[in-house]
């Protein structure tokens, strides 16, 4: 088992009632598994599935990223928004390489 520190923000924190929590996961657990566990416990988080970004130790991470003992996982709900207009030909992938 590994110990994972979870950070929650904005509406997620309101739903869960906590900004931080520590969870035990199976060795080899992924970021996505942490999210699934949260949704199982707090079903009203479910509507955010597919609209999230994740970070491990303050770096963006894919849901399939494998966690290490002691990692900090941040669940990043859709950010503050504002009408965004996608221009023709505009690059709109979320993770542009530098």
């Amino acid at each position, binding site marked *: 088992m590994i110990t994972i520190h979870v950070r929650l923000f*904005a509406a997620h924190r309101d739903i869960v009632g906590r900004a931080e929590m520590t969870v035990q996961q199976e060795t080899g657990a992924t970021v996505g598994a942490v999210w699934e566990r949260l949704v199982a416990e707090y079903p009203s988080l479910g509507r955010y599935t597919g609209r999230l*970004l994740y970070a491990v130790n*303050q770096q963006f991470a894919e849901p399939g990223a494998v966690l290490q003992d002691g990692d900090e996982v941040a669940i990043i709900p859709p*950010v503050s928004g504002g009408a965004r207009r996608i221009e023709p030909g505009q690059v709109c992938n979320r993770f*542009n390489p*530098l």
Partner: protein
Amino acid sequence: MQPFQPFVITAAPLDPAPLVAYAQTPDDGAVVTFAGVARNQFGGRSTAFLSYEAYAEMAVPVLARIAEEARARWPIGRVAIHHRIGTLEIGETAVLVVVAAPHRQEAFQAAAYIMDRIKEIAPIWKKEHWADGEAEWRHE
């Protein structure tokens, strides 16, 4: 005195002057300053005030990364981005983006790009507190 920090998350009111003073160098012919401010309504519903929250340990490096993305795309000079958190009254500035560049077209394009990217990936959230007393996170 602490040196000027180009990428900041702060609860203090924002002032563009030090960002412009930092960004502009003698090579620059253009300085674009974008201020995102708390407005009085959204979709016709009156807003009383806004509050912003950030995952600050991550947001600061994300702002720096977004500036580097812009510098990799356009021939621009220095960039500064300050984002406020906490409670904002109508008219107060939530975010300042300053881009200096030799020429204006690139300064405009880079500033607009940086704002788009902040809205996409910076871990900063806005809560709208409506005049009728309700409140909601704007990613709802």
